[in-house]
């Protein structure tokens, strides 16, 4: 499958995402400079993590106006898969492809740590290789990952099973202490109503090799790959 990894000025996880997709998962990938508009050749697009435009003003606030974002919106409207990791998630919220917003972590500190994620909905393009309730060990790395949405939006997200991952204890229970950032209802990752745009704060690309501490991130990428190829998961 062909992945486009979108790079804004200030993006800094593009090499990691590229490494995971190509070196570990054996997929085709190439970088998409934020001024490019042509996404036709890709089966899926990943907005990689980092600090686009320095995170100045608000995370994702400036990147959302990049030319590539129009194409990403069209790509998504055509039903193709879009994944926003960390800063990518923040951008997708700013541009309105995903509901809600990401606020400063409740404790006000940047946080780089391992977290446990409970898979809330295993029947999606992004989680098909997981089982419901499965706990994935994936690190977070952000200063603003505190998910916020107004009560109506939150209710809708829950109703439509759009919440894909919640921070949990290693045994799978969702407790306030398990959240690294004070996120509403421990939300770590969500998708849009159409089910083809996902944003998540944790970094699955950092958890694709056991030597790095976990290979659980592969469940997420393998889900996408098998959704795209229509074949069974390989994990």
């Amino acid at each position: 499958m062909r992945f486009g990894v979108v790079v804004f000025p200030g993006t800094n996880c593009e090499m990691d995402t590229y490494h995971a997709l190509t070196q570990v998962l054996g997929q085709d990938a190439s970088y998409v400079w934020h001024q490019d508009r042509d996404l036709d050749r890709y089966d899926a697009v990943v907005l990689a993590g980092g600090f686009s435009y320095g995170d100045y003003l608000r995370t994702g606030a400036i990147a959302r106006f990049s030319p590539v974002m129009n194409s990403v919106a069209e790509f998504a409207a055509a039903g193709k898969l879009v994944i926003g990791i960390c800063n990518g998630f923040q951008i997708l919220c700013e541009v309105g492809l995903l509901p809600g917003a990401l606020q400063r972590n409740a404790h006000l500190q940047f946080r780089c740590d391992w977290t446990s994620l409970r898979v809330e909905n295993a029947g999606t393009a992004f989680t098909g290789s997981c089982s419901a309730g499965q706990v994935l060990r994936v690190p977070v790395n952000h200063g603003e990952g505190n998910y916020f949405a107004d009560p109506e939006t939150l209710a809708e997200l829950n109703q439509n099973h759009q919440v894909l991952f919640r921070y949990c204890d290693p045994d799978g229970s969702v407790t306030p202490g398990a959240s690294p950032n004070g996120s509403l209802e421990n939300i770590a990752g969500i998708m849009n109503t159409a089910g083809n745009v996902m944003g998540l704060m944790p970094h699955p690309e950092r958890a694709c090799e056991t030597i790095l501490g976990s290979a659980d991130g592969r469940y997420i990428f393998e889900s996408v790959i098998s959704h795209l190829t229509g074949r069974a998961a390989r994990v």
Partner: protein
Amino acid sequence: MLFKAEVKVTLKKGVLDPQGSAVEGAVKALGYSGVPQVRIGKFIEVWVEGASEDAAREMVQELGKKILSNPVMETFTFSLAPSSDRLVPAVGATETATRTGVK
């Protein structure tokens, strides 16, 4: 004509403000008791060239909506007045975003 707008961006009611709460805590820790609440927002000074005050106002309103605030959690208000500030040739790191061509 040059105008200067002062844009105040504040969090919507009901949106938690961890920074504000932290300041409340710090204020208390310093021994001040009568500070029931602190909310932290942004104060953005925007200098705009406009044919008229109305034109300038319209522009700031647009900027406030499009970029300076995020309607999911924030609101903004602004005041605007003619400015006689002498600005350093409008450059600075500015070029960054321009040249990298945010649309």
